[in-house]
């Protein structure tokens, strides 16, 4: 029994030992495993760090060699970092000239406000693109454009502004030139219209002046020879006065024509406007051997318009027709101006010529600013005409047919019922 117990004891001991051993081995294995895992992790970490370093180096190289200014900037405007291109941009000799300083040192005073507004947007988490004028550390004035994005830290809070800035001075300058050029063109167009106006005006004024001179000289000659009774001079002298008044009327009209002010709307007899245009363009038409004929709607159709502006539109159309026919040496040079009732509440004015017509490919562009087919045109006339017609609530169209071009525009007619009370309108004119 004793040996049996011992045996059993041994067995139990052995079992226990084995169990312990197994446990130990297991434990060791696990430990090893864990160690391996840790080791692997460590190795992994080291690789990541390497890569991070590598990446940072690469980024730094890219930024340093980037031809455009790259900078980091704090919310208060302090420059945290800037690349060499940035240093060159602000005329800094070394990094210390600008890093740690406020960016406002190189922003033109009048643009600091704009700069701060955009900075605030970036620090609020938005991207921003803005232009500003910069005064470099050496005092040069340059135009800059910055694309800025927010940089966030681990808590995803914006801690800096990353800005890429380029010098757009040349571009700005070209833009400015373009703008000046446009202004200049507009000025030339206005001057040339006034120049043409002046020619028309001179010829128009010549008439009463010539009559005055003839009447007066006739009087003087008769008085010299003494072969005239004073009473006979009354009539020619009255003619002199009338012609002087006529000259005054022409001048007043011309002054209205060049005046630049708010439209003065009144009830206008469109036929009268057409006749007035014919007078002013007569000289030019004749010089280019162009015959102008009128087909005017009866009953003096009235429109609600600024007569001078409408005159300008018709003037432009007639002048264009005259020039188009002359430039292409059209054999038949005729212009027909018609006024036609258009529906119940509109009147249409048509200017039809026998010129070369308009090329189909450009017919949609003729009303565009600076579009011209004339050798010396600036392309303002039709664009101005369109804006005038549209401001009168009408529309203007161009059509080309085999034998020439037709321009027509509509104006709001005044209903006949209203016409009875003409005084209403005379208050405005």
């Amino acid at each position, binding site marked *: 029994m004793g040996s049996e117990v011992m045996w059993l004891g041994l067995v139990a001991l052995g079992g226990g030992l084995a169990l312990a051993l197994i446990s130990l081995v297991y434990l060791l294995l696990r430990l090893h495993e864990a160690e391996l895992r840790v080791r692997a992790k460590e190795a992994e970490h080291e690789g990541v760090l390497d890569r991070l370093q590598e990446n940072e180096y690469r980024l730094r190289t890219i930024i340093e060699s980037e031809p455009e200014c790259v900078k980091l900037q704090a919310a208060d405007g302090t420059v945290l970092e800037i690349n060499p291109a940035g240093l060159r941009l602000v005329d800094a000799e070394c990094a210390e000239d600008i890093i740690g300083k406020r960016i406002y040192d190189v922003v033109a005073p009048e643009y600091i406000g704009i700069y701060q507004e955009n900075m605030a947007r970036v620090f609020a988490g938005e991207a921003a693109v803005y232009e500003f004028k910069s005064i470099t550390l050496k005092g040069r004035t340059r135009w800059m454009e910055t694309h800025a994005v927010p940089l966030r830290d681990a808590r995803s809070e914006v801690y800096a502004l990353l800005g890429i800035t380029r010098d757009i001075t040349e571009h700005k300058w070209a833009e400015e030139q373009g703008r000046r050029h446009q202004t200049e063109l507009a000025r030339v167009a206005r001057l040339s219209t006034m120049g043409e106006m002046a020619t028309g005006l001179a010829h128009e004024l010549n008439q009463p002046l010539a009559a005055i001179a003839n009447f007066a000289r006739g009087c003087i000659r008769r008085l010299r020879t003494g072969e005239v009774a004073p009473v006979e001079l009354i009539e020619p002298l009255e*003619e002199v006065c009338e012609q002087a008044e006529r000259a005054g009327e022409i001048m007043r009209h011309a002054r209205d024509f060049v005046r630049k002010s708010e439209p003065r709307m009144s009830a206008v007899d469109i036929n009268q406007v057409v006749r007035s245009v014919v007078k002013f363009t007569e000289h030019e038409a004749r010089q280019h051997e162009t015959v102008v004929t009128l087909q005017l709607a009866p009953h003096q159709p009235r429109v609600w318009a600024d007569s001078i502006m409408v005159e300008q539109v018709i003037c432009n159309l007639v002048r264009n027709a005259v020039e188009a026919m002359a430039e292409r040496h059209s054999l038949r040079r005729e212009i027909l101006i018609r006024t036609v009732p258009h529906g119940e509440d509109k009147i249409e004015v048509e200017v039809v010529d026998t010129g070369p017509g308009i090329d189909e490919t450009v017919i949609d562009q003729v009303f565009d600013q600076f579009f011209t087919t004339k050798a010396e045109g600036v392309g303002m006339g039709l664009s101005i005409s369109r804006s005038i017609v549209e401001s009168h609530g009408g529309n203007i169209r161009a059509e080309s047919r085999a034998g020439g071009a037709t321009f027509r525009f509509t104006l709001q007619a005044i209903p006949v019922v209203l016409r009875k009370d003409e005084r209403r309108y005379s208050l405005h004119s």
Partner: protein
Amino acid sequence: MSDATVFIVDDDQAVARSLRWLIETVRLKVETFASVQAFLDGYDASKPGCLVLDVRMPGMSGLDLQERLAARRMYHVPIIFITGHGDVQMAVRAVQAGAFDFVEKPFHDQDLLDRIQRAIAHDAGQRNREEQRSQLKALFASLTPREREVLDLVVEGMSNKAIANTLGLSAKTVEVHRAKVMEKMHARSISDLVKMAMQNPSVTT
């Protein structure tokens, strides 16, 4: 006083009236027309004088009128154009197309009146020459065909004998024809006859 008429065509009635008032001071007759068409309809080509025409006119222009008159292939009065100041192009064209003269607005009264007088004198001269030419034509027309033949040969400088040989006539007959030609043509000498023959286009062609 001259019976010449100054024709004025101007659509501007005030200007036309003022020209009349001025031109009447030199005792010329004045007729005014308000348009080119009115002038073409009412113009009597037999009246001597001149035409004062403003190039600036709507519808048919002064230049058109000049063309129309030229197209009639008849003698017409000389035209003085009134052009706007600096309208040289127009003036040149008018003169090229046969205008007598032009005045530029504004013109001096005496200047216009002088030009009108010159135009009227030119017209009188033209009419005179025209008259002579038609008289001459009538004289030539009075000759018989045989007399015309003799005349042509005389003008060429042939002797009676040479003419007789050429035409197959006797010298005596040629002598008779020649005397008849001198008489009919009212020529006092051979040189008179030659001059007349030179002036008659039907001989020189």
